[in-house]
């Protein structure tokens, strides 16, 4: 319990630091006022607009004002859409979460077993081939994979839609594309595109860890004790492999969630990434601030979850009083 509270306190500090850093960076995004006023506005009108938005104030003052309001859940109004930022972000959140969860399921669901299998069958032709293919997944840039998939499956074969999220169903505040045929079809290409790199990463990491663990003394002793091969490989080997793998999967989930910008742009996926890329181009500071805080929050939550997971699978951490955190 104390462990969790301590982690929450740390997470709060991380959020504040993230917000402060992002505020210092906004100066470099440029001046949103010129985007907001339209070409007919005079220089004096632009100055008045800047003053009304508080953009002329010192960064520290802007930051304090932002934190004060954010604590109450008020992230201000989007400069571009003229709508409350919190609403905009919440509206886009389901799309991004569904995409990132599904792609991480694909990546983990395939990467983990393949990693174990290639480790156990080291040297076999098929295992070598799998590894070679996984290199391609690491080497190819995401947007290229996305475009190639669109050209093959949408333009040439006409099987899958090239953009958008298909039909969605509204479940309270949550809009889901998982319950309609067109929603599922639309999910295939973007989630596969997003999963390719993660899949290769998880596969190779699992394989390396597994090889390492299988060389350790306790596995050798287990063999000497005459334990069943399956028990050695999965109960002892895999379990010890999982600690670093879970850490990486957790952090990669954070990455996929926060930085699916490229995939969302390529597939016109109406999630946070698309909102953010437009906000960057427009200089929509309230949206960017809310997004960066949300991303920091997401990483903090994932880190805590990963730590708790470690506690569950690695008894050594429990014994040493939870001093070791996530990497």
């Amino acid at each position, binding site marked *: 319990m104390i462990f969790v509270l301590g982690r929450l306190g740390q997470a709060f500090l991380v959020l504040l630091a993230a917000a402060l850093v992002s505020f210092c960076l906004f100066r*470099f*995004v*440029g*001046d949103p006022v*010129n*985007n907001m006023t*339209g*070409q*007919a*506005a*005079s*220089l*004096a009108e*632009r100055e008045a*607009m800047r003053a*009304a*938005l508080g953009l002329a104030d010192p960064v520290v003052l802007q930051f304090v004002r932002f934190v004060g309001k954010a604590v109450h859940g008020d992230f201000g*109004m*989007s*400069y*571009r*859409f*003229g*709508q*409350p930022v919190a609403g905009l972000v919440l509206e*886009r959140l389901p799309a991004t979460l569904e995409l990132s969860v599904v792609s991480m*399921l*694909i990546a*983990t*669901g*395939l990467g*983990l*077993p393949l990693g174990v299998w290639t480790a156990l069958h080291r040297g076999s032709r098929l295992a070598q081939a799998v590894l070679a293919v996984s290199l391609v997944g690491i080497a190819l840039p995401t947007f290229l994979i996305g*475009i190639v998939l*669109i*050209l093959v499956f*949408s*333009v040439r074969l*006409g*099987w*899958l*839609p*090239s*953009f*958008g*999220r298909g039909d969605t169903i509204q479940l309270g505040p949550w809009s889901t594309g998982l319950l309609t*045929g067109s929603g*599922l*079809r639309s999910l*295939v290409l973007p989630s596969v595109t997003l999963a390719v790199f993660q899949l290769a990463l998880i596969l190779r990491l699992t394989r390396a860890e597994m090889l390492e663990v299988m060389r350790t003394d306790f596995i050798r002793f287990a063999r000497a004790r005459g334990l069943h091969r399956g028990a050695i490989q*999965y109960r002892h080997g*895999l379990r010890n492999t999982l600690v670093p793998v879970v850490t990486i999967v957790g952090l990669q989930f954070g990455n996929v969630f926060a930085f699916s910008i490229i995939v969302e*742009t*390529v597939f*016109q996926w*109406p999630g946070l990434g698309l909102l953010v*890329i*437009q906000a960057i*181009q427009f*200089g929509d500071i309230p949206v960017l601030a809310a997004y960066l805080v949300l991303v920091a929050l997401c990483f903090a939550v994932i880190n805590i979850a990963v730590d708790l997971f470690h506690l569950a699978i690695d008894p050594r951490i429990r014994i040493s009083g939870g001093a070791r955190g996530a990497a």
Partner: protein
Amino acid sequence: MRLANLLTASLATILAMTMPSAGQAPAPSATAEGSTFRYAYRVDPASLDPHALAETFTLSFLGQIYEPLVGRGKNLELVPALATRWEQPDPRTWRFHLRRDAAFSDGTPFTADDVVFSLRRAKMDGADVAYTITSVTEIRKVDDHTVDLVTAQPNPILPLQITSTYIMSRAWAERHGATAPASVKARVENYASNNANGTGPFMIESRQAGVRTVLVRNPNWRGDNASNLGKVVFTPIQSDATRVAALLSGEVDMAYPVPQQDVPRIEANAGTRVLKGFELRTIFLNMDQKRDELLGSDVKGKNPFKDRRVRQAIYQAINIDAIRDRIMGGSSHVAGTMIAPGINGYDPRLDVRAAPYDPEAAKRLLAEAGYPQGFSFPMDCSNDRYVNDERICQAVVGMLGRVGLKVSLNAQTRTKFFEKVLGRDTAFAMIGWQPLSYDAHSTLQDTMSTPADKIGTYNIGGYSNPKVDELTRLIETEVDPARRAALIVEAMDIDKQDYGHIPLHQAGLAWGLRAGVDVVLRSDDSLELRWVRVEPRTAAAAPR
């Protein structure tokens, strides 16, 4: 491992479920209510509030739902919209005679009260479109179907200026608390940002901002809707490659803009074609002629751009034809003057180069002006605002290098770029200008007049010629069209002879269409749905 097995199995199930049913999006069917038309543009309309944002695409999209008093025809000529005719009883008054047969999509009849209400709303704080009626000092209802707009001084082009000033229903706005425009500054949002009730040919059926907007025919539209559309599905697709892929795969019937490099591909494909035109925006170079010492230059104590010979040398050093052929893929229109064909006041006699491309002559002019070795200065450029903007600037830098001018390029995102150049923190910069009223006066007033208060905001180089300023003031109030046109030509010609600005070109427009879709490409890049006709997809036209 059991968990992993489960995951693999469930993934296989998802794939198995989706694969067999995966197929081409259903073809549009010609139902009793008309065909379905699906199209994609680069961005989504930012708001449905007709007065909140003066963004070109937002206003163009809202023009399908709302109507102005005076509209634009296929060649941008003025046509009756909610006003059937308009006249000037005296030089300071414009009288608009309103339609009696128009109604809003909720059934409310349209009257003069709606006009008075809407124009007052459009003048409020936070209304971006206020610039269209800044000259109007009084909005007066004469009777239920006549409205007078009174201006402080004669304004001959008021009808040209209000073609995207849309009319809302007063009763509807009052019922939903939308009597003031949504404003970021005042932190106001309202019902009209996400809902609409206009008199236009189409109305909103559903809208998910940033995802999809579905329009249907307005049942209360008075009838001259030449389209055969029953339903229109609009999707924003930001990525160029995806937008083109959506057209090629047949998921949309039209996609625009189409990047120049994809034009041959769409034309080579059997089921698609490209419609081409030119933008109304002129791209031009600005030279700082105001400061006494040029920023960031190795010439100290004076400003070489104040010398007309230096400006002419720069002009003669730039091969605009090469920019058209090498960078714009042959699609741009080389500009000889600061306004594009289609802008009111355009004269083809001015639209030829002021002096030929001639690097040798440029070098001679520089030597005459006292810079035989040339000099150096920085150039500011955007990299995400105009078509190929950064590449054009790189070409200009290279061409100027050949006559001895050492230019260092600073290309950055538009938000940073405009902050810098509008702050006049620049020696040499490239911008573009499209008059919002499609009238030359805006170009003269905003980009060529001596900067002061509300005038010359985009005159980045601070070009100043008292004669141009005087002519611009005369043009503002000159009521006689022929005399006005002559004044415009005179003013444009002075700037041209001064080399006050260096016009480069108007970029090409390209719309990608499915075969069997007929649209009108208007040079303001606005798709008017009432002129769209869609033939049902035939087997021959089906995409691969």
